[in-house]
């Protein structure tokens, strides 16, 4: 084994209930290299990185760190070996401050809080991270949480840092900043493994790229020898590049009746006098940078959040004023919100697919139901698993066992089973593989063709442009500009989103 290799896996296999998540994978990571792992959801990327980080152990095969065979049994053991992982769904404690999270696990017998804050402040400043150490993590946005995760990994002097979908929740500016940070880590000799569904990022950032498919390694090669088409082909075994974002819209659907009107909605400090309308039979794309108040606006519409009590603005559904204080009446009124954070808000991960979808159906009954039917649950679950092509061992499979794309389909099914008139998709393809993206996009288009009012909130401009009939651009808590999909360009949208 070469001295140049800091971490390697040979014939790595991990079985879940007898089903291989990774199957005989050979992988090596060079010192100071940036190595991208790409593949569809369910390809085994997360499992492979979890093995490296000690979150799961191999069923068979060998892992070597600096040439020494080793099998970390816990993340703590991996961390002692110099391997840290920044998870896709962050692993911070939301009720603790940034500083406490940074030093979590390194507490001494006597901890002086002021000292921790000063040390955290100095450390965050050295990384040029604009995060307040005294802020509670739960109150931070996704991007800042990501920064804290990265800072924690750097603080632990990791020689290998693994990022799982690091840029999914970052704005374009923050992504650029993140790339600079990763390159800076590389200069310090840290080896980086990162999983990304944004293939352009892999091509731009990585030195080498490994493509996985169905738990097996397809290819590892220098990034310079890849292009987008080659990666996609390797990932899915078919050419999908033109069915995703490549084709520009030439027609848009005509607006139907006005389904939703939001007027001067306020929820300090995120939503500021936001006004917009949504029409039936159209896909309304909502673009904005992190903190633009898009998610919060539509969470208020669907009763997940409450608007300000005084001068909070008005919401009209089919021209009738509504104010949903909890989600149940919104569901009854035909409003469905498909969350951006599926792991936390989207499903019960230890319940089966069928049970989760059935829960969506039960939400339609305002008073709940006294008698529940397992048979009905299974029938409903089975129908939707087929309709949305959810790939699982069976309908009784737990949602936690599914890949990101299939989990997202379950979350969508849970809302569609309610037969809503207005469907709000918040980041519908975040953390979803390219194959599932195509299926989810087809589903969203189908819903609009059926006459439903569809809202798609996305931070990914090509997705907004590929899906939307009209594009609303949100900035600092309110919609500032509207474009027809025919006139919109990335430059115009970004200009409105930033200025």
């Amino acid at each position: 084994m070469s001295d140049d290799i800091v971490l390697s896996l040979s014939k790595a296999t991990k079985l879940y209930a007898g089903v291989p998540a990774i199957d005989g994978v050979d992988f090596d990571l060079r010192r100071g290299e940036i190595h991208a792992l790409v593949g569809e959801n369910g390809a085994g990327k997360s499992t492979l990185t979890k093995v490296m980080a000690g979150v799961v152990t191999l069923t068979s095969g060998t892992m070597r760190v600096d040439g020494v065979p080793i099998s970390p049994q816990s993340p703590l053991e991996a961390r002692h070996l110099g391997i840290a992982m920044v998870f896709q769904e962050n692993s911070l404690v939301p009720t603790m401050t940034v500083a406490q999270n940074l030093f979590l696990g390194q507490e001494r017998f006597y901890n002086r809080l002021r000292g921790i804050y000063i040390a955290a402040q100095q450390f965050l400043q050295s990384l040029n991270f604009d995060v307040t150490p005294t802020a509670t993590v739960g109150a931070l946005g996704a991007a800042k949480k990501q920064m804290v995760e990265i800072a924690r990994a750097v603080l632990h002097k990791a020689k290998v840092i693994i990022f799982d979908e690091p840029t999914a929740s970052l704005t374009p500016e923050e992504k650029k900043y993140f790339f600079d940070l990763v390159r800076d880590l590389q200069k310090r000799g840290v080896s980086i493994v990162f999983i990304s569904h944004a293939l352009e990022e892999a091509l731009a950032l990585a030195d080498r790229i490994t493509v996985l498919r169905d738990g097996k390694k397809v290819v590892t090669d220098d990034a310079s020898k890849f292009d987008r088409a080659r990666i996609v082909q390797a990932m899915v075994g078919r050419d999908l590049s033109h069915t995703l974002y490549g084709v520009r819209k030439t027609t848009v659907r005509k607006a139907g009746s006005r389904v939703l009107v939001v007027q001067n909605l306020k929820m300090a400090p995120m939503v500021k006098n936001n006004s917009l309308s949504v029409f039936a039979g159209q896909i309304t794309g909502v673009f904005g940078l992190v903190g633009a108040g898009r998610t919060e606006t539509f969470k208020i519409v669907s009763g997940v959040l409450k608007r300000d009590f005084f001068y909070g603005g008005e919401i009209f559904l089919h021209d009738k004023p509504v104010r949903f204080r909890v989600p149940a009446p919104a569901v009854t009124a035909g409003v469905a919100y498909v969350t951006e954070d599926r792991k936390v808000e989207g499903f019960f991960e230890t319940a089966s697919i069928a049970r989760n979808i059935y829960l969506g159906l039960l939400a339609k009954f305002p008073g709940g139901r006294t008698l529940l039917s397992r048979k009905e649950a299974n029938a409903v679950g089975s129908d939707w698993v087929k309709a949305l092509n959810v790939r699982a061992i069976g309908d009784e499979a737990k949602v936690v066992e599914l890949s990101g794309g299939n989990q997202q389909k379950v979350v969508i099914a849970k809302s569609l089973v309610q037969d809503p008139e207005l469907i709000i998709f918040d980041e519908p393809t975040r953390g979803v593989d390219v194959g599932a993206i195509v299926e989810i996009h087809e589903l969203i288009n189908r819903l609009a063709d059926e006459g439903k009012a569809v809202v798609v909130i996305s931070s990914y401009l090509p997705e907004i442009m590929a899906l939307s009939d009209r594009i609303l651009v949100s900035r600092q808590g309110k919609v500032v500009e509207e474009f027809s999909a025919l006139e919109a360009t990335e430059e115009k949208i970004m200009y409105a989103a930033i200025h």
Partner: protein
Amino acid sequence: MIGAIQEFANRLLGRGDAAIAVPTFDGALKSNQKLEEAETILECAAPEDLATDGRSIYLADGPRLLRLDRDQATEVRRFDRPISALAFLADGGLAAALTGKEVQVFSEPSAPKPHAVFSTGLNAVNALAPALDGTLVATDGSAAYGVEDWARDLLESRRTGRLLSLDPATGATTTLASGLGFAFGARATGDEVLVSESWKHRLIAVARDGSTRITLPHLPVYPSRLSPATGGGHWLTAFVARSLLVEFVLREPAYRKRMMAEIDPQYWIAPRLRSGLSFKEPLQGAHIKTMGVVKPWAPPRSYGLVIRLDASGAPLYSLHSRVDGTNHGVVAAVERDGDLIMIAKGPGRILKLPIAPLDREFGA
């Protein structure tokens, strides 16, 4: 009593009429820059209203009455006072309102003397339109202020507008509706008269018996004059767009009173027919301009808008001049030979846009 409690609660909680809310420009009112693409066929000092006899367009420019033939302007006659409204009757006669206080009716545009004059009880006649029975309908915007002092009428939240019927044959003046929030524009359609109520941001239909119904509520603009559109329906102009700042100031009587007493009217927080001329204007800075570029979606102090309505009064499409444009303060629009002729009062321009491409583009 219950109404008073409701109003108090609304003011406290910012709901209902007390909500500081401005609808968005979307759907048929989605913003574009069509008015900026319009051809300027004439520039004049004080254009106010347009009317057509079916052959030519007549333009009121201050005290002058001009005829537009193939975009050439010819002075037809000159009055001793500025014209505030203009209309042709079904028999070819011309009606002109002068400073809003008098309406003169002529048998033809160049007739030496009027055959009917209405002057009693008129204060701010800002629009005239022919009715089917040979009479005229007129909107008298305010009982308190003249036609040019509309901003003061808005800031004092007055509701003294009237819809009048003027009968040139008998000289009778009949009030069809009163208590309107600045009536500005009317069009007789069958048994009803469609009226723009600017301060209430809506169109209403007034029946012969005086009953009213709202046909187009919650406009994001202050609507003004109406004219017929080919194929049925109407053209509605809007002389300025609403903004949150003005809506907020309209909820603050003490502030408004002091502002009107102490500040030059030019710089009041109130809508204007043109803007961007002085650094003293209330809306400034990054709200309007970023990195040297005026943001089209910035809060408008002045705006240009023409809305194509169908026969039922529902919007089909709209033509805009946004904050970064100049053709603001559109007060009149009339069709001629497949073109739409409009007055942008802010810059003093007469604009022309061919209608067929617009109908095609917007699928009307």
